[in-house]
Every structure is written in structure tokens, then in C-alpha cells.
């Protein structure tokens, strides 16, 4: 680890010692410019993603994010109540356009996210490796799975209604059919450990059917979430469909769980049972739908393998309503 003696510049560059990093090699290259021309790297300011823009927290607060070795990585925006409310407004505003888009269109937009992520996969691999402390192979696999997960969900957009809808043979002269419709605005907490694949596995099933969302990224491993936001922002996803907040779920989620313009909660990433119970209680105030899968409860320590299995319909079904329409038959 000695080559990792974190000089100020190296540490802020956020490149782990084990990483086969393009940034690391470029730093070496720049050092050949001579004693007075050593290139100082340009550090990124990590911000929130709300309504298609990247604002700082209105509170002006940040918190320190560390890599897997506990080395300071970046100051990350610490979302406030006001940021959460702004995100709900953005998600609500985006809902009619996104839910009204054709399923074919939504499928293409999700597929586009996969395309854009493929082009940024080296950055994502580095960030996962550094943040989760896994091997390069593991990081590569997790990014591949995350990209493929978008592709998997993209294909579902125009099949959900065929699989979950029905034509209902009622006992009378009526045409009667049921179709799934998006629930509305969903507030979610992404898993802590699996910082990219877990996050994608939470967002994709929410938005594929036309919902919009506010997602709290892994508090301890927020960097891949911000990079994902950048991929989403350049993937034809309408502003406000996905909003990503960094910060403390215990502070921000209660505002979302009690917000009357939020229709549902996904608590997949909430490990603290007391917090989950509090949020479920608050959800009752406006009869929100709550998803809290049994299989993730208490098994968050594994940074990837739990999320590697191919998903089923459950995560999509949780945020769908069944609408049934009757019409008489006659001449």
C-alpha cells in the first residue's frame, strides 16, 4: 500500500491503490511535463440530481464519503427536507408525460441508459472497486450486470400489460378488461452495500411502467449513484423521472414517507428495522403502497451476490395499480 501514501492530490483523485485506473496512469503521464508543469487534476463536485439538474443541497450541507480503505474520497451533498420536497415536485411534474409515453418509447429510453452506461463502464468499475473494496473482476461483473439489468427491464415495458392485464368474462353483456397502471411517485432507498447494481435494481422496475421516483443513494457509497445520474441525464430520460438524493435516509425519508404527493415507498435499502417501521407507519397517513422485500431484510452485508439473481415481476408489480374498465355490449 506504500505507493498509496495518500498525497493530497492522489487521495482526492479517488483512485484506489489496487485499481487499474486510467486516472492513475494519466497522472503519471502528466508528471512528465516537468517539475513546474505537473498537472493538477480537476476534482468533481458531487451534487444531487433533481428535475434533470445537478444542484447542491439547498441547505449548503455536505458530508464526507470514504473509500473502502477509509480514505477520504469526496464531499457529497447532504440532502435536506427542502431538497426532498423539490424532488417530489419534479417527480410529480414528470409523471404525466412519462406515464403517458408509449411503452415502446419508455423501453427505448431505458435501453438508452444501458448504452450510455456501457460507454462509462471503466469509470463505474473504478468507483465500485474503490468504494466497495472488491476485485477488478468483481467490479467488472457488477457493472455488466447493472447494464444488463437495464436491458432486461427495458424489454418489459411493452409486455407488462399483456402479462399482468386480463380480459374478464363477466356474467353479463359487458366488455370488461383490466390493465396495470403506474402508481405514481415512488420514494425509494437504494441498498447500502451494492452501490450500483442494487441502485439500478431499485430504479428500473419503478420507472419502466411509468412511475417517477426519488431515490436515496447508498449513504456510505454514494459515488456510483452520482455517476449513474450523469448517465441518466444524458439518456433521453425526461427531467424529473429519476431524482437521486445523497444524504442520510433516517433524516430525509420521513419527509418523503409522510409527503401527500408520494404514492409509494420502496424500502429495499432500509436495514434499520426501527426506521423501516417508522416509515411504514408514516406511509399509512396517505395509504401509500410499501415494498419491503423479505429477502433483503438483514442480508445487506453482501455487496453484490444478493442482487445478481435475475429479478421477477415482484418489484414491478409493487408499483402498479390494476384498472378495470366496463362497457356494455349492444346494438
Amino acid at each position: 500500500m506504500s505507493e498509496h501514501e495518500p498525497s493530497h492530490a492522489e487521495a482526492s483523485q479517488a483512485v484506489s491503490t489496487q485499481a487499474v485506473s486510467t486516472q492513475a496512469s494519466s497522472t503519471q503521464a502528466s508528471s512528465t511535463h516537468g517539475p513546474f508543469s505537473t498537472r493538477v487534476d480537476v476534482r468533481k463536485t458531487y451534487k444531487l440530481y433533481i428535475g434533470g439538474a445537478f444542484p447542491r443541497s439547498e441547505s449548503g450541507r455536505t458530508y464526507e464519503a470514504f473509500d473502502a480503505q477509509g480514505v477520504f474520497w469526496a464531499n457529497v451533498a447532504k440532502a435536506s427536507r427542502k431538497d426532498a420536497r423539490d424532488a417530489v415536485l419534479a417527480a410529480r411534474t414528470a409523471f404525466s408525460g412519462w406515464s403517458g409515453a408509449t411503452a415502446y418509447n419508455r423501453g427505448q429510453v431505458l435501453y438508452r441508459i444501458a448504452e450510455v452506461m456501457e460507454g462509462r463502464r471503466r469509470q463505474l468499475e473504478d468507483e465500485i472497486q474503490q468504494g466497495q473494496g472488491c476485485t477488478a473482476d468483481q467490479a467488472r461483473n457488477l457493472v455488466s450486470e447493472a447494464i444488463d439489468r437495464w436491458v432486461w427491464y427495458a424489454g418489459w415495458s411493452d409486455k407488462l400489460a399483456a402479462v399482468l392485464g386480463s380480459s374478464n368474462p363477466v356474467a353479463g353483456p359487458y366488455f370488461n378488461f383490466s390493465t396495470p397502471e403506474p402508481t405514481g411517485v415512488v420514494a425509494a432507498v437504494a441498498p447500502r452495500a451494492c452501490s450500483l447494481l442494487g441502485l439500478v435494481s431499485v430504479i428500473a422496475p419503478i420507472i419502466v411502467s411509468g412511475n417517477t421516483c426519488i431515490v436515496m443513494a447508498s449513504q456510505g457509497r454514494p459515488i456510483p449513484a452520482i455517476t449513474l445520474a450523469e448517465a441518466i441525464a444524458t439518456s433521453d430520460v425526461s427531467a424529473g423521472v429519476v431524482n437521486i438524493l445523497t444524504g442520510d435516509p433516517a433524516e430525509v425519508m420521513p419527509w418523503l414517507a409522510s409527503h401527500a404527493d408520494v404514492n409509494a415507498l420502496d424500502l429495499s435499502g432500509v436495514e434499520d428495522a426501527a426506521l423501516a417501521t417508522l416509515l411504514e407507519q408514516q406511509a399509512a397517513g396517505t395509504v401509500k403502497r410499501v415494498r419491503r422485500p423479505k429477502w433483503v431484510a438483514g442480508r445487506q452485508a453482501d455487496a453484490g451476490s444478493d442482487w445478481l439473481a435475475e429479478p421477477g415481476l415482484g418489484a414491478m408489480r409493487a408499483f402498479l395499480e390494476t384498472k378495470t374498465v366496463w362497457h356494455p355490449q349492444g346494438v
Partner: protein
Amino acid sequence: MTFEYAPAPESRSVVDIDASYGLFIDGQFVNPIDGDRIKTINPATEEVLAEVSTAGPQDVAAAVAAARRAYDEVWSAMPGRERGKYVFRIARLLQERSRELAVLESLDNGKPIRESRDVDLPLAAAHFFSHAGWADKLAYAGLGPSPRSLGVAAQVIPWNFPLLMLAWKVAPALATGNTVVLKPAETTPLTALAFADICRQAELPPGVVNIITGAGETGRLLVESDGVDKVAFTGSTEVGKQIQRSVAGTRKRLTLELGGKSANIVFDDAPLDEAVEGIVNGITFNQGHVCCAGSRLLVQESIAEEVLDRLRRRLTTLRLGDPLDKNTDIGAINSAAQLARITELAASGDAEGAERWSAPCSLPDRGFWFPPTVFTGVTQAHRIAREEIFGPVLSVLTFRTPHEAVEKANNTPYGLSAGVWSEKGSRILWMASRLRAGVVWANTFNRFDPASPFGGYRESGFGREGGIAGLAAYLQEDDR
């Protein structure tokens, strides 16, 4: 000259009401251990019909334990094919005893015999018949190759369709392999207690269905019991929220079918005769004691006067009175408490500046009655446009464009049902896709069928009853 209707009462002699009822636990009626007794009355006459038990904490525990035992030892292990035959038997028994049960329902609830006979009973039997066929076909429910049941279901139902709501709860629970503890409403326990006898006749294994009577406290004890795996509730949004709060953190599965303030939207190209019948049915069916009642009439401005004239004329012809009379259209309000609530909300309509019109019908001296009532000049801010009245009180608002109709229809925290009246197919489908409601009736209203999923958006609850979608409420979810 006017023709008078001669009285045409349905005979009460087909029903045999005991003076007093125990709790139906583990296949037999037992006296409450730590419960109490309450009286149930005929709301049309205020005559006491019977005394029933209220289950206390130990009674609830005994019922849940019986359901658990039946689940573990009998019901969960029984092949679906055999389980289904019990549910078929129940459907047949309901058909065979439908006249008796219809009369009993009208006596205890106050609804016209025409409705209990032609709607509640046939639909209740159909619900059991339809779900019985699912019992050995759950692999086709879209929930995986062999979906598992949940365990013991705690079911709390309202007083507006006592036996039908029992059917909506018990039929899917049994067909999917769950056992049941059901609590009927305190004012309408008698058909549920009669259903216990049907379980006996069907030779349903003891403990598979347990029926405990009582008021809100019994319901609270039941849904908060550690021994239940599933809670299904139909009733007010207020109580639904309390239940959702109480099951938070417990991992119990929950479905809620709550209140509504549904819009019935009439366009200027609607078939007006049918539309007026639909408006009348939407608000007077079951005295308006319907969660999906079309209690907000949104009528296009250009035809508002004509629609209102026809509506008042039609409401004037309705016959209010003895629920057992076969010519009665409007029966009794279910309880003094509900009558007080309707009266208070209607008074708020007067106070807030809306204009009241009531059908000129004479009300009987005894019992609880409220005439069909229409408020015009209603704004979206009025309480009578926002709060569920659960009575025959219609609030009329107008609109000019389809967009305005959608906006107003969706301007409510509820989302149970909506009606659309128009002869233009493309407009109906456009409206249907934009209305945030679980059921949309186009050129009809208040239709129900076991094959048709029913349930709400937003604060009207979650989960569906009926159809393939309804099975998910009683089976383990694929939660990935």
C-alpha cells in the same frame, strides 16, 4: 288518475333468528370467554332482532388459534382439488338458501329486498363458485409455479353488503388455502352468523372459518393479533389508516378497500335516458351506502339543466319504505349513527352555500331514513364534494371540456371508481386512461362480478378483490 302500489311484502317466515348468538370458533358456537353482548336491530323499525356476542381478547386468541390449527393440520395440506370442492359446496348452499339469506340481510341491514335478492345473494354465491375453480389452478395465477398460501387471514368487513363482503373475503382466502377469522360489522352480524351454519352444512373442517362478532375493539384485537399472517379490511379510510399503521413493521400482508368520492361524468353526447338511470343507480343503490357510489356528478355545462330536470323527475318516482316490500327502491339507513353523519354532512352543504333538493317522499315514523337528495351549486372546496357521505346525497358540479372533467374527477385523495357517459368510443377510452380510479364504468355504473377485479387507487386502498388480480392478495408474492 294515478295508480297506487299495493303492498307486496316478502315473507319473513323463511328466516329463523335465534334470540342470542355465540361466537363461531373451531366449528361450533361458543359463549364468549371475556366478551360482552350487544343487540342488533332492524334499522327500518328499530325492533331488536337478536343479541350477539362481542369477542374479547381471549375469544380473539381462541379464534386465531383455531384458525392456525386448522391451517397447520388440515387446510394447508389439503390438495387444491379437494379444497375447491368445499368452496363449491358453499356456493351451492348459498344458492339453495338465497331467499332466506336475502330476507335476513334486508332485515338486519335495511336494504330493499329487490337488491338483496337480485344483487347481494347472486353475487355472493357467484364469488364462491368462481373462486372454487381457482383452488387447483393456482399455478396459472401468474405468481410462480406453485404459489404458497399465507396462513391465517384476519378479515374485517363493513355493514353495507354484509354477506357479499364476506364472500369477497372468505372465498379467495379459502380457495388459495388460507384459513379465516372474520369479523362482521357490529350492526349487521346476522348473515355472517347464518354463514356459520352453511359452513356446518358444507362439513367444512372445524377452524377453517371462524366468525367472531363485535365492534371496533374486537376488530382491533383481531388485526393486531400476532397469530395472523394477513389482514384484509373493507371499511372507512380513517380506520384503514389506523390498521395500516398498526401492522407497520410486522410483516403481515395487508389489503385495504376503503372509501371513495367517485365522479360520474356525463358528456353532452351521452345517451341521456341511460345516463340518468346510471346517475340514479350510482347514488341511490343501497341508499348510497356504497364505497364506489357515484357521489359527485360532473355534468357538461351545456346539458346540465336538462340532466338535472330529468334527474329530479326520476328521483321523484322512487319508492322509499319497507325494505321487505318488493316494490321498494330506497330502504333504511343502516344505523342512527350513519343517519346522523349523513344529516350533518348535508347540513354542511346548506351552510357552505350549496342548494339542496330532496325527493318529496314521506319518511316512515320509525327507523332511520334519508330521502334521495341532490345538491347543486357545489364547488370543489365544499365538504359535500370532498368527504364521503355514504348516503343518498349527490353533489353536482359542471365542466366544459374533457380536460376539465378529468382534472375535477381526479381532484380527490380517493380513487375507487368513476363513471363516464358518452356515445363517443374514443372519448370514453381517452377518459378511462386518465381517470385515476380502480374501476371505470363507461355507460353503466355499479356493476360487479367475481371475474372483475375491484379496488382503489390512492387513499381508496390497495390490493384487488376478484379476477386473477385478486388472487395475489392471498398468496406469497414473488418479491424480487
